[in-house]
């Protein structure tokens, strides 16, 4: 175990930034989101939940995929992908919480499945992930339901933060390499403090109101029964059909592909899309989901039933609680789990 005094963290960031791009929770206009670090930015590692999740780093909200140059009838396709590893341009994603780290695993199963999404892969391969253990979980957190240990997240490097130090432990080769880069700033020690923090946090996690949600009902064999449940109507009644839950969600991965005409040609880009939007499934000759209830149902069925049945039971929810905090009308996945999940939820 290594450690660095809290007041020297800026030196650590600067050192990493010398040779790598650093993405870290930064406060801007009152809100904390992951952003590129530079001297003078207000880093906020203490923030439990960034508004947007770090998925933005691998799967940006908008991303140019290719360009088309058109001359007369001829079309030329220009590949704008970048292989960052080959270019020697590497990144560090710093301060990822256990839930968000698990979410990256969920995204990997989509984007790194054949055929591999190279846009995602290029960023993913070039990035070293430094996770940060939680010490002050709040009432909307329920990562334990998904067997995530918020006190000891995985990642290339795991860190813990208390009032005096940031404790540092490399887990992988990438992590060792990063440790070697900043080793002059790190000193030995911290095992006892980290253990104490883990114990204290676990006590809080035990007390969290959602820590014991029962997911037993969400099994592939119950797919049609859950789909037909009459409760969807009532649960989705207040849904505005906005995309807040999907855009703050660390595992939502639906996207749209669109073209933009420039003075020179066409840019084809992809951007996040939301199954909550009315035009998500709209085709020229009809729409397979015409009501907000159907769209609401799709989102939660996908997270709790469809995705797990495609991925060996892995849920596409990590219990980060962002939707619990951010839904304008206070609808969220917890209410769905409680209503449909299983008998132990009462």
């Amino acid at each position, binding site marked *: 175990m290594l450690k660095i005094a809290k007041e020297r963290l800026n030196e650590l960031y600067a050192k990493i930034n010398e040779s790598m791009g650093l993405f870290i929770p930064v406060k801007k206009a009152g809100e904390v989101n992951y952003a590129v670090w530079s001297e003078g930015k207000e880093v906020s590692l203490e923030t439990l939940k960034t508004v947007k999740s770090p998925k933005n780093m691998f799967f940006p909200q908008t991303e140019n995929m290719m360009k088309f140059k058109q001359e007369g009838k001829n079309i030329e396709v220009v590949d704008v992908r970048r292989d960052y590893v080959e270019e020697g341009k590497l990144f560090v994603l710093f301060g990822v919480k256990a839930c968000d780290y698990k979410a990256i695993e969920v995204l990997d199963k989509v984007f790194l499945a054949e055929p591999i999404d190279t846009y995602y892969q290029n960023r993913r391969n070039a990035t070293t992930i430094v996770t940060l253990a939680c010490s002050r979980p*709040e009432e909307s957190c329920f990562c334990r339901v998904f067997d995530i240990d918020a006190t000891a997240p995985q990642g290339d490097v795991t860190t813990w933060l208390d009032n005096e130090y940031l404790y540092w432990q490399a887990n992988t080769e990438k992590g060792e390499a990063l440790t070697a880069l900043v080793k002059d700033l790190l000193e030995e020690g911290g095992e006892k403090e980290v253990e104490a923090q883990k114990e204290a946090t676990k006590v809080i996690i035990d007390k969290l109101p959602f820590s014991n949600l029962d997911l037993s009902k969400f099994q592939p064999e119950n797919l049609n029964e859950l789909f037909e449940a009459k409760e969807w109507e009532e649960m989705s009644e207040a849904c505005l059909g906005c995309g807040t839950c999907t*855009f703050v969600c660390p595992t939502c991965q639906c996207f749209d592909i669109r073209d933009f005409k420039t003075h020179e040609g066409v840019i084809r880009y992809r951007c996040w*899309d939301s199954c909550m939007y009315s035009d998500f499934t709209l085709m020229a000759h009809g729409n397979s989901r015409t009501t907000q209830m159907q769209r609401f149902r799709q989102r939660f069925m996908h997270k709790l039933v469809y995705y797990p049945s495609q991925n060996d039971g892995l849920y596409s929810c990590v219990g980060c609680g962002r939707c619990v905090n951010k839904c304008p009308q206070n609808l969220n996945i917890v209410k769905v789990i409680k209503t449909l999940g299983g008998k132990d939820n009462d």
Partner: protein
Amino acid sequence: MKDVELKMLERAKALLQSGEVARVIGWKKGEFCYDPAPASFESVEEMENGFVYNWFCGANLSKYLIQMAKKEGKTAVFLKPCDTYSFNQLVKEHRINRENVYVIAVECLAKLDVEKMKAKGVSFITDVEVVDKDVKVTTAYGVETLYKPDVVLSKCAVCTKTHQVKDEEIILHERPEREVNRFEEVEKLEAMTEDERFAFWREQLSKCIRCNACRNVCPACSCVKCVFDNPASGIAAKANDDKFEEQLFHIIRAFHVSGRCTDCGECSRVCPQNIPLHLLNRKFIKDIDTLYGEYQAGEESEGKTPLTTYTEGDTEPNDVFNGEAK
């Protein structure tokens, strides 16, 4: 607040039982004390099991009436003072048939913003109690007292609204009269230089994730198909690919609701990035007040809005900058 809730519950149950209304739109208990959700209740049992009215019922229920009031039978709705303006405006725009709705005006002594409370450092909230100007928050980490004006929804901070429409009212506590200037923040921005204003909005709007929550919650945004969802408009987009689109979306949206926006403040309440969107709409309101005479959308349920009428002596756009709008 509990006494008000009980009275509301009693009235709603009576209305349902007598068959006067087929459903009641109100708020339903959430998982915590601070997350009630809008809901409709069709029976006394449903009301007893879930109805709630507390310090966190900030959601404006009037927009739900567009759908609900089309259903069979009369719909009763609880409207806070600010919500009644939206209701009137929707009636004016023929989105709601007034005759199908039974309006119960309920008191509101400002609603709390749990995000503002959390920003003050409280987390793991288990209970909230309000005594006068003290908000006593019980958390798993201890008890803290917050100053109420610091943690009310931004729309409530400058509210002087009164019920504009009601079939009956439930008001047990009178709200103290107060003098506030709701344009204070707008004036602050106006007093800045162009560069400062640009920097301010650039920073705020760069947070926008284009979730459309502001649009979808807005009672004035009642178009069946929004221009931003219409591929034929040439500006349909799902995300802000360029900073221009951040500006475009908010400028167009603010313009589309100008003269119709009642300043209900829902846009700012729902924004996941806490962009002060109400400051966009308030600029229009302030300009309209200054240039064309004071106008409050939603005070009446008929008549014209400032942008659908004119006078021959209106200010010239080029002169607006010569201080006439400020």
